[in-house]
């Protein structure tokens, strides 16, 4: 599968973009030319020059540095959210799929209820009740999204538990935990990775939207959604402000989408 993926040019390009962005995010303090928080009110809305490669914002803060530091909350929190969602959803789905019977029934009814609520409204609801802030946005997203994975992974597990190699493992007396860790998890892992990659774009847009509305990260911390919110206020006078964070967001989101599509194609047994 990995070899197939490396042949796919689209997947290669999107992986490169994601990899570089993540690296830039990790080394943001080293790479960024200026302090993202330092305000220079005299130099506000400065045009791009050698000191500020992308100009400055309404408080005279370096746009490029804010963009680079913004990678952390935007991408890393989305990654954290996705990983937590998958772990929770995967665990629940695994239990439901493997245990069958009444436990499965109860879990799946709970999942049905969660899925019947529109996810955007539920995120708003949880943030509304817990209060504004990035931590609550992450909690809300995890609380809503896990059910989606639980259902997917349950059906994956169900499909695999009837395969002969699992039956064989049972027949030779392997313990349940051995079967789950050594057989079921590797079997469903590739599908989970694909789902996660397709979902990362959604999570990134969702989290940055909440920051844009002012419900997520609080100023002055740099985040792409929040930066766009500030740029919106300067729309009349300095429309170029919105280009940097917007293009960056679209680039990374579409990279994750493309990678997810390529993974799906690579996994699809139909296309040999």
């Amino acid at each position: 599968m990995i070899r197939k993926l490396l042949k796919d040019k689209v997947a290669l390009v999107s992986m490169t973009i994601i990899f570089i962005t993540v690296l830039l995010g990790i080394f943001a303090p080293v790479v960024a030319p200026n302090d993202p928080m330092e305000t220079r009110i005299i130099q506000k809305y400065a045009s791009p020059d050698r000191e500020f490669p992308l100009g400055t914002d309404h408080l005279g803060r370096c746009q490029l540095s804010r963009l680079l530091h913004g990678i952390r909350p935007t991408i890393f929190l989305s990654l954290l959210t996705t990983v937590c969602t998958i772990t929770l959803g995967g665990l629940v789905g695994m239990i439901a799929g493997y245990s069958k019977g009444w436990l499965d029934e109860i879990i799946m009814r709970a999942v049905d209820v969660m899925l019947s609520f529109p996810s955007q409204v539920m995120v708003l609801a949880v943030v509304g009740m817990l209060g504004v802030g990035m931590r609550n946005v992450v909690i809300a997203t995890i609380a809503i999204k896990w059910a989606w994975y639980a259902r997917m992974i349950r059906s994956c597990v169900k499909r695999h538990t009837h395969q002969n190699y699992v039956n064989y493992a049972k027949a030779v007396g392997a313990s349940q935990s051995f079967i789950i860790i050594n057989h079921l998890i590797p079997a469903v892992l590739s599908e989970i990775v694909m789902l996660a990659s397709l979902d990362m774009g959604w999570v990134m847009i969702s989290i940055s939207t909440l920051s844009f509305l002012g419900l997520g990260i609080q100023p002055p911390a740099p985040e792409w959604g929040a930066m766009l919110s500030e740029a919106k206020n300067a729309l009349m006078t300095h429309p170029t402000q919105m280009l940097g964070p917007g293009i960056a967001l679209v680039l990374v989101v579409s990279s994750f989408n493309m990678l997810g599509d390529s993974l799906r194609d690579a996994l699809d047994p139909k296309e040999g």
Partner: protein
Amino acid sequence: MKQYIARRILLAIPMLLVVTFISFGLIHLIPSDPVEVALRVNEIIPTDEAIAIMREELGLDQPFFTRYASWLKQIARFDFGQSYINKNRSVSGEILRSLPATLKLAGMSFMIVVGVSIPLGIICAVYKDRLIDRAMRIFIFVATAVPNYWMGILLIWLFAVKLKILPTGGNQQSGAIILPAVTLSLTYIATYMRLIRNSMLENLTENYVYYARTRGLKEKSIIGRHVLKNSLHESIAALGMSVAQLISGTVVVENIFSWPGIGRLCISAIFNRDYPVIQAYILMMGVLFILCNLLADITQAMLDPRLQEVK
């Protein structure tokens, strides 16, 4: 058919109850005491005495299920209580005041979605892998990757700031609805266009299409009368759900374009910690989703009698 509708409605009732239960229970997630919040936002110092009075006034001294039952009775009369922020305003009044604007916006977007995605979906299916299909595939890809708030800002910049042909926001001037409605519908146009395209392509491989072709029917009438009818059946459920999604999706768009609807009401309620308003908003959205789902299912079953048997 009647039996199917009755059964489907019966199935929706427990879902409605669950939705009310969740919207009621969510209020218990508040990290602080709601009584104290209610007092503080009205700038009353929360002394023990004031807390006790307020607690009784809000009915919070009752046990959970008693409160839930009386709350259910209340909301059945569309009474969501008083806003914490503005004691003189009832929550239902606030919602009724801002609902028409949201419905207008969502209705307009729905018309755009239906009017654009169905013809484009058909064209893409008919001219599969030709230039227009490929161009539309790029559009779909871009529309799913661009966050709609950024799209909104870009549209404001282009049409309001640069070309000066449309207002930037509000709902007073004529044509003010165009930009928010287009912004809201873009993502959904992409989704439904793809849905209709794929469903038509799937139908085109069915036996009845071969039969129609062997009978010597014109391709136009095969597409228009047979394939389109069958693929629209499948898309109707999704289109029905899009009404609910459009209404809940207005939150972002209303905030960008200063559109005075329930999405903005909800966001300002979140900032002001006006919990009754948030609660009413969640409840309304939950009920709306269930009703739209119900209607979509029933219409689909009416159009396609086979579905009545399966469930």
